[in-house]
């Protein structure tokens, strides 16, 4: 069920109504969990079984960690292993089956064929990571302060119900933000209609739906032509514009989804973490990963980078750790060479930046508060944007040979006039993303503040006008209702 479908609006209305009916207040967690199961099962009922299995495994192992101090590590390892095995089976099973089929050189039949056509369950990458977060956070809490069990209830039944909500909560189920158990569990309590921050919900939902339905869904009609073999004849500048458009699209799609998820969760009284912080104004790759898919990067930092040693084991080990984390982060996105190369690409970028910082004695990282020349900052921002944008090519073309063909087309298809049929619409639909980012550049914010002071603009009419235009855009200029890009992960 997509957030921008009519079915979802009906589902949301029913769930919201039932949730806040006073007579049903004590069943709020149940209502939300069951609604989330309905949400997940809507498109693929059979895969609901997998979600329930994941919830059970994570609930059971985390419960056992608290019950049995001596076997805590065993239960934690079991929980993490089962999560990773499930993820590996569904994500990499088809790839493995394909390799085996090629090796034995016969058409795949039986279980091999079943593996090849195995569908990737929506959200599996997200909810298995959350399951791991629950298990690991429980173990850490158990070790730090045994007996202090704010994550795990005294009885298994209530713990299972709370864990169901944590894993399956529908706003974030399909594509994050990836929640951490220690941040979400304390929020599980009775919610009241009067406590909803409607202004916050409205802002998140309006911006989220605008980015998704007006920007991303319209850009999709142009970035379609980056697919093989269509790009082979397209002129170079047009190809680069389409790639730029894809960079805008993937941000609008994913950030839009995250904002919708945050707004929806707030309607039910839950605070989800911010997932994007205007990543395209980053002045370094390191800063980019502090602003892009924040919930994934913090998960990787907390549950992979730091356990690997982080930056505490010397310089070389730090670079290796960065590379490993990004490589695995790339593989998390999908079982294709392109994703692994994408992970390596960013890993190398991060490692080189860290090396340069170390060579300069730690002064290389941009300090957001540091007053640096705007030209230098602009140059760095453009460089990082270019680096990241070319990386997105590996997302758009999972077949690595097509990536090479695309780059060859960019290099060779010069001399023809640019295709304005495509260039102009891409720029028009990209403008909101550009404006969205520029509005959060500190220099521009300061200029606006000074202007408002001088012009004595005190009322919020500029903001109201922006939101009014966005709402009108959603109603009048939405694109096709396409699935969210990150649903495929």
């Amino acid at each position: 069920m997509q957030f921008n479908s009519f079915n979802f609006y009906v589902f949301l209305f029913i769930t919201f109504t039932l949730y806040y009916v006073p007579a049903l207040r004590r069943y709020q967690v149940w209502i939300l969990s069951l609604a989330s199961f309905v949400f997940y099962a809507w498109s693929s009922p059979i895969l609901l079984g997998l979600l329930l299995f994941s919830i059970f495994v994570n609930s059971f192992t985390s419960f056992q960690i608290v019950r049995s101090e001596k076997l805590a590590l065993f239960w934690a390892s079991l929980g993490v292993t089962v999560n990773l095995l499930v993820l590996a089976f569904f994500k990499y099973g088809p790839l493995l089956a394909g390799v085996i089929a090629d090796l034995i050189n016969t058409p795949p039949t039986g279980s091999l064929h079943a593996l090849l056509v195995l569908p990737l369950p929506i959200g599996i990458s997200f909810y298995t990571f959350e399951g791991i977060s629950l298990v690991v956070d429980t173990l850490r809490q158990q070790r730090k302060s045994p007996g202090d069990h704010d994550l795990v209830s005294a009885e298994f039944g209530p713990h299972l119900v709370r864990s169901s909500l944590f894993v399956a909560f529908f706003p974030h189920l399909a594509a994050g933000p990836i929640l951490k158990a220690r941040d979400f569990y304390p929020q599980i309590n009775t919610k009241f209609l009067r406590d909803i921050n409607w202004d916050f919900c409205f802002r998140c939902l309006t911006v989220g739906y605008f980015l998704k339905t007006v920007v991303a869904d319209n850009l999709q009609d142009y970035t379609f032509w980056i697919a093989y073999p269509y790009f082979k004849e397209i002129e170079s500048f047009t190809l680069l514009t389409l790639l730029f458009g894809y960079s805008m699209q993937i941000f609008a799609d994913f950030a839009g989804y995250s904002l919708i998820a945050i707004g929806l969760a707030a309607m039910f009284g839950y605070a989800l973490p911010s997932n994007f912080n205007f990543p395209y104004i980053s002045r370094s790759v390191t800063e980019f990963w502090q602003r892009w898919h924040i919930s994934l990067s913090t998960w990787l930092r907390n549950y992979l980078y730091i356990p690997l040693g982080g930056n505490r084991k010397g310089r070389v080990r730090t670079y290796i750790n960065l590379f490993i984390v990004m490589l695995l982060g790339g593989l998390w996105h999908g079982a294709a060479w392109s994703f692994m190369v994408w992970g390596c690409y960013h890993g190398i970028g991060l490692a080189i930046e860290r090396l340069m910082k170390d060579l300069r004695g730690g002064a290389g990282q941009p300090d957001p508060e540091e007053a640096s020349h705007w030209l230098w900052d602009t140059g760095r921002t453009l460089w990082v944007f270019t680096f990241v944008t070319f990386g997105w090519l590996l997302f758009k073309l999972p077949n690595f040979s097509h990536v090479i063909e695309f780059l060859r087309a960019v290099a060779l298809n010069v001399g023809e006039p640019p295709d304005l049929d495509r260039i102009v619409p891409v720029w028009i639909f990209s403008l909101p993303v550009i404006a969205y980012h520029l509005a959060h550049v500190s220099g521009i914010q300061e200029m606006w503040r000074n202007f408002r002071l001088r012009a004595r603009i005190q009322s919020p009419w500029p903001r109201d006008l922006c939101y009014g235009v966005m709402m009108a855009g959603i109603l009048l200029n939405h694109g096709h209702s396409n699935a969210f890009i990150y649903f495929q992960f």
Partner: protein
Amino acid sequence: MAVCIVLIAAYQLLIAAHIVRPSPGINQWQSNFVRAQQYVIGPKLPEAVLVGSSLSGRLTPEWLGPEVSARTLNLCQAGGSAQTGLEIMLRSGRTPKVVLAEINGTLIRGADEDLMSRLFHPVTSRPAAYVAAFKSEYQPASVLISSYRIQTLLSKTHLLDWSSLRQFLGGMTRKWSSPPAGPEQALLEVAGTAGPPKDGLTPEDEKLLREQIEVFQRHAATLERAGARIYCYDVPGDAAFANTAREKRIQAVIDQMLPRQKVHWLPEPPPRDWKTSDGVHLDDPDAILFSDFIRRQILTILGDKS
């Protein structure tokens, strides 16, 4: 919310005052939907309708002439087939007098269910029927791109995005590191299929084609019972392309299931060496010639002399 309502109301007023002109669509998907919406909720039901793919979508109102264009709607769907057009007619409950259906291998694609679900959604499609601002042809960005000076810089072809495809296969003089694609490979790349079939049409595709022709026959029979006259035709193309194993097999299946003795077919266009830009889409001069042929056929069918 108030600002939003005011903006929409103001935009609707501009449309009603004919200050804002409709856009034919700025990409193939939008063009497809605009045409479909024009048929379903347009004020006037056309007397004749063309249904098919981008091959017939090339036949612009300018080339068909004002007399025919005023009475005809080109409901062809780029990337689609005649099935989509017939489905639209059946679901809308609006039946024209004459339907010209493009019959060829594009039938394999079947009807565009995604377009159908958007066009006929019981709730979300309703506002456009009453408030023009919600119609696809009045989407502000499309209107902006189509209307201003920018339009003079854009291609004048009716299906803007297929210009790239024409260039792709028409670029035989371009320097490539690999040899230029032959017509069969070109079709397969256009159709998005994996690799060249060893013996013409694959068994799976032939089964699909037969099933889709049966669907076409059922739809056509329903429309004929409702009062429409259905005429089949095909768009001529590159002779070398028509002589590929796949195309020959497709033609054989069509001749077997839709024989001229039992189904109304338009007469063949005047024989000539038809020129295409990519093996399938007629280039402009030949598209104009074919449009003239179709124009005369429509006028004859509607009872007017050409």
